[in-house]
Structures are given as C-alpha cells and as structure tokens.
C-alpha cells in the first residue's frame, strides 16, 4: 500500500495551553486519530522550532559536525524526508543524524528537533 506523510503547519500560538479553546484543539487531534485509525503508521508532535538545531558535516561523511541554533531556513532545497530517531539527548541524535547523506553531501542540511513526550 502506498504511504503518504502529512506535515502539520500551524501558528506557534495554536498549541498554547492557555488559549481558551485548548481542549477543543486537542480533541481535534484525538478525533483525527479516530478518523484515520489504522491508516496512521507513525508520527510525532514536534516541539517548537525554538528547540531546533540544524547540522551539517564539513569535509565528507567523517568530517566535522557544525551546529547552528535554530530551524533550517528553506531556500531552494526541499523537504526530502525524515527519520524518527531514538536517542538519549541531542548529542546522541546528532551522532546519528550526522550520517544522513543530506548532512554531508550536496550542500544539504539536517534539522534535528525533539518530539513532544506523549
């Protein structure tokens, strides 16, 4: 069966627990879970892009990791895919993510961001 990824874009304020209709917001996602059911093969809620780190590796795969604070500001590149990685902390995640080819070739970048604990 073919698979598709649904990327969620929303204003930062959308998930503010202080908003009066926060419960309604959350219920919306619960309801989607019921609608899509077993068609949902995976997914995660991401923390805001304040927590993001963008990496690239200079000098080939085994070169030096350069980290930048913040999300990847897309210019002419496109979102090519994603992995959900299990790691103890950012350092552990970067130690893996640095080997994703986009991190070290073709001028690509890899953005690493923690998921929300559910």
């Amino acid at each position, binding site marked *: 069966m073919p698979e598709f990824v649904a990327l969620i874009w929303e204003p930062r304020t959308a998930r503010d627990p202080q908003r009066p209709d926060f419960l309604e917001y959350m219920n919306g996602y619960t309801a989607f879970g019921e609608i899509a059911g077993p068609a949902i093969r995976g997914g995660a809620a991401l923390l805001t892009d*304040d927590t993001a780190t963008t990496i690239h590796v200079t000098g080939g795969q085994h070169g030096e990791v350069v980290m930048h604070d913040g999300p990847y500001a897309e210019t002419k590149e496109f979102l090519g895919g994603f992995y959900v990685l299990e790691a103890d902390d950012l350092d552990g995640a970067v130690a893996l993510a640095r080997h994703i080819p986009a991190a070290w070739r073709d001028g690509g970048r890899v953005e690493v961001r923690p998921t929300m604990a559910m």
Partner: protein
Amino acid sequence: MSSVYVSIDEIIRVEGGQVVATLYRMTGQLELAEDSFSEAALEAIRRWPKDGLPERPGAWLTTVARRKALDTLRRESQRPKREEMAAALAAPTELDVHTVRDDQLRLVFTACHPALTQAAQVALTLRVVCGLSTVEIAAAFVVPEATMSKRITRAKEKIRANRIGLRIPPDEELPARLSAALDVIELVFTTGHHAPVGAGPTRVDLIDEGVRLAMLLAELMPDEPECHGLVALLLSTRARSATRVDAEGEWVLLADADRSLWDHGDIAAAIALLERTLKAGRVGPFQVRAAISCLHSDARSMDETDWPQIVRLYDVLLLMSNSPVVAVNRAIALAEVDGPEAGLMALEPIGSQVTGWHLFHAARADLLRRTGDVDGSRSALRAALECPHNDADDRLLRARLLELP
C-alpha cells in the same frame, strides 16, 4: 577558609557554580538547580551573619539547595520523573572530588553547547557558571536587560527540551566541545579587555571572570594543554591592563605604556606555565597566542620586543587558523621588523574580509602615516570611525585625525 573571602556575597558567588552543577546532575533541570541555589543563598544571607560561617560553606549551600529542590518537586506533583529525581536528591551526598569535578565540567559544557548561539553560550556561562545576574550580564554586553533575559531563558528552554548536558561529552566529541568552551571564555575576557561599544573602554569584571573561568577549566581538564595555554594568554594579557587606559579613561598605546606598572608576578607565572605546557608537545592556537602575549609582556620596551619571533609565531598561528584578525596582527608585527611598507603590503590581501573592523583601518592608518601618506591615513581613520567602536576608540581615532598635518 573565611579569611580568603571578602564577604558572604562573594562566598556565595564563588561556591555557586559548583552547587548549581551538583543540583543540575541530581535534578536534570537547570532552572530548578538555579532556583534552588538562589533560595539557599537567601537563607545563607539570613543565617550566616547570626550563626557564623559554616566550616564548609559549599557543602552547607548544597545541602540546603537540595532540600529546596525536594520541596519544589513535592509541590509540583505532576512533574514527570518526580519520584526518580526526588530519590536522587534524597540520597546522602558526601561529594568526592571526582564527582564535583565532573559536575562542574558538565555545567561548563552545557552552557557552551554548540547547539546554542555563541552569544547565548557566553550569557549562560556567565549566568550559571560564574553566577552573574542577568542585569550584570546585560550591562557588560550593553544590551537591554529584557533582551538578555530572553536570550538566557530561551537557551535554558532549548537545553531542557533537548536534554543537553546530562552527561559529559564522549571522548570523540571532546576536542570540538572543549574548543567551543575555550572560545567562550576568551570572548568573556576580550569583551572586558576591549569593550566593543559603550562608555568604559575596559570592563574589569569580565576580565577577571574570564581569568577565573580559564583557571577553572584548566583545573578541571589538567591534561589539555590548550586550557593552560588560555590561562597563560589571559594572565599575561591582564598583567598589562594597568596601563591599558589612563586616569581619564583614554587608551594608552603600547609604545607609551609605563611597563613598570605591569603585573610582573603574573607575567612570570604565565611564562612559567606556558613553558611547562609547551613541553607536552601538543601545541594549539592558544599556546601560540600565549607565547606572543608573553613576548610582549616580557619586553622592556617596544624596541626590545622580539618582533621577528612574534612574526614567526603569527605565521604558525595562521597555519592553524586562517583568521583575518590574526593576519592583521601579523602585518602590524611585520611592520616593526621590515618597515611600514611591508606591513601595508601584508594588509592588502585581507582588507576585503575585515572592512567592518575598526582596528584594521586604524592599523592601516598608522602604517600609512609612517610612510608619509597623510591623505591615505586620513581616509583610513575615517573608515575606522564608520565601524562599530567604543567611546575611547572614538576619541583616539579623532585625536589621530587632528594630529595629521
């Protein structure tokens, strides 16, 4: 113990870094570690004047801060992993020397983590390792307090979300992480030594914090020659600080400095330290820069300075880090050996990389003046004035403009 400190405030500040570091290991939360320490500090201020100074103020503060952290965790019952953390906090803590060392190291590496911007690394280091207040840090970097507060809060949020610094970096990551920490410490020092903007040309607090941080890191990582190189660099540079500015707050040029006012004890200490360090045979940029600084500090006058050796050291440094700032300094030294024309020729190829750096234009103006090119010197001084600089720089540059025929 009490005799070496000036005040209770200072004890609290000096011990603070270690207490926060220990609490951070126990709770895994920087904010909680800091808040608990602040509460413990308040209690110390209340009780020590009445009860007398405890025998080991650091241990006293750690114990009280731990209790405060436990109280907080008990109040906030919804926190995940609360039980686990509470258990870690409740365990008896007779801290051995290795644990203390690791805790502090972890805190330094957390604050200097490369996933944070360098501005945030510097601010966080001053906040959590040195215990400076947000107000003090904002003042030192001449930014509004709200800006600094936001910068620090955001950095802490990022650390929490990404679980940064809960372990010591593994060996393979250590060189890069250490070099980031050394850079942060140097930036603290240089911001004090030559304030980028603002009224005071130097900021003594940041100079001393920089030296203190460098010594701490060297103590924590005694086998890393670059840590000692940084200490030697900062000590020998600070040793000249008595003649950096005059009574009116104006820059004093190296050529005009009264070298008898330099701290010759610190200079000798820096040289001895550097000589010991170089024996390890693992030379890095900080050791080379320390060697250059020591040659300046040890010379009895400009003329007696070993300029050829300084140029050679800058050559070595350029091989290690191809930085335009190093290249400018090399050109200045070269002018002392081969004349101002040689210096100008060396400046030529780097000009485009440092157009926004006032000291590049000021150096060029000085060399042009020495070759007799008054017009060139004048326009270089004007270019320097276009770049960001502090008030004392401004007066010096304008005075030089007026001195031109």
